[in-house]
């Protein structure tokens, strides 16, 4: 038996098929992964993401520390509650993890990191934090729910105390606030509007029940994966890891190159890669034929060489198969993917595939 979130019993009661995910017993789906996917694109769904790791960093020099630790620049965070997506790199520019950092106040930043990378993330942060007299504290005793979809905020607002509701609904994207015992942020991993809500573990089951009663669909890890793939949001350990730089994982936009004098871990290595014309490119693929693209399938680009699918699957919104892939440097609009020995034609397309309920690729 694996680790359980405070909502394990609620998942079982909702009919979840439970699977192991990085040592956690988590819901894969509650009957139909596709219907859960559509619920998030069309109305609202809720995911238990309590397995994710919340880390508080405290100290007088915490901002200075994070400007050194992360490839994105927390100098961009000037209003309390404002959030930033960033990679945390090793000295070679490889991705230790991707995370969201919240500016709480000048001596306190909050990080949300992946569950499967918890131990190495904490060890790395603790090692680097020492010189800055910053304390690294894992937040325990909490649960986290992601409520996502065009109706998510409206349907979830009933869980927020009336005193805070108006302010919570007015939160701009990528911003969070404390609302009584809830920490509410307008963030997510689906390409839809919505909130991620951190709460005391004791409040998790009643909040979950309230959301379901309001018409929010319970959604499992299966739908979470197809939604994030359509939104072309990377999955750590699949699309990037410590051997891959953000430049080869479609995360170039998360690197803050300016100001040039800011030293951050991995910078020197990234500067060299940035001017390397042979650096692999990270692209979206759309399967022209019937079939399903899967992780690790070989991609053949005529005249340019071979690459690999990092995340492939079926898009319930597009009713087609899509993928993210790392390909040799170059320009090309099509390629072929080796699916069980047959070469199937794919189109190389800009990402995201789907955002805010709309298909962005011409099929």
């Amino acid at each position: 038996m694996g680790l359980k979130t405070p909502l394990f019993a609620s998942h079982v009661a909702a009919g979840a098929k439970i699977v192991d995910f990085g040592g956690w017993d988590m819901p894969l789906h509650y009957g139909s992964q596709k219907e859960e996917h559509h619920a998030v694109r069309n109305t609202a769904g809720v995911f238990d993401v309590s397995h994710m790791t919340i880390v508080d960093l405290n100290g007088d020099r915490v901002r200075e520390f994070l400007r050194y630790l992360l490839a994105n620049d927390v100098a961009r965070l000037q209003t309390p509650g404002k959030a930033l997506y960033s990679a945390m790199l090793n000295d070679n520019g490889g991705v230790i993890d991707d995370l969201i950092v919240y500016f709480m106040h000048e001596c306190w930043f909050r990080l949300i990191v992946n569950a499967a990378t918890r131990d190495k993330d904490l060890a790395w942060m603790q090692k680097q934090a020492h010189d800055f007299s910053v304390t690294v504290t894992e937040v325990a005793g909490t649960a986290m729910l992601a409520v996502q979809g065009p109706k998510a905020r409206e349907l979830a607002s009933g869980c927020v105390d009336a005193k805070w509701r108006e302010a919570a609904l007015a939160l701009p994207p990528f911003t969070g606030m404390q609302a009584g015992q809830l920490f509410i942020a307008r963030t997510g991993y689906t390409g839809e509007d919505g909130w991620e809500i951190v709460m005391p573990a004791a409040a998790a089951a009643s909040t979950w029940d309230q959301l379901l009663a309001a018409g929010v669909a319970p959604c499992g890890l299966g739908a979470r994966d197809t939604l994030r793939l359509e939104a072309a949001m990377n999955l750590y350990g699949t699309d990037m890891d410590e051997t891959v730089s953000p430049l080869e994982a479609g995360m170039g936009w998360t690197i803050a190159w300016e100001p040039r004098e800011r030293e951050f871990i991995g910078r020197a290595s990234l500067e060299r890669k940035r001017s390397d014309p042979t650096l692999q490119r990270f692209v979206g693929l759309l399967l022209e034929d019937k079939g399903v693209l899967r992780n690790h399938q070989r991609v053949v680009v005529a005249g340019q060489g071979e690459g690999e699918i990092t995340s492939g699957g079926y898009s319930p919104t597009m009713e087609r198969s899509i993928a993210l892939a790392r390909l040799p440097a170059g320009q090309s609009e099509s390629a072929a993917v080796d699916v069980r020995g047959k070469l199937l034609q794919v189109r190389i397309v800009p990402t995201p595939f789907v955002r805010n309920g709309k298909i962005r690729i011409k099929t």
Partner: protein
Amino acid sequence: MIELPGDLLYTEEHEWLRREDDGSVTIGITDHAQAALGDLVYVELPEVGQELDSGGDMAVVESVKAASDVYSPIAGVVEEVNESLADDPEIINGDPYGSGWIVRLRPSEKINEDELLSPIAYQELLDEEDA
């Protein structure tokens, strides 16, 4: 509950076989298999006329989650494939023993029932997997 018709034979790989009156054999995947796979999104079918070995690749069923091979439980020649699965693979989820059949074979040798599972034996297999 998992549905398990009593007039079929089964395999350890969660396929079912029905012996038709004309001597051909219809093959599909069990209710347990479709439930474990989840929503099906693609089925790769063999060609009519193709010769299949016992235990050889027959079809591939792909769900949102993963691809899964379907093996031919017997040796034979493909007489008919369920073309409607090409456009609507979820038929298998809704009716695995009926309209969700996959292939109809003409056996090339006498079927050895000892190598297949009776409904009772298949039920025992499922019970063991649950335990």
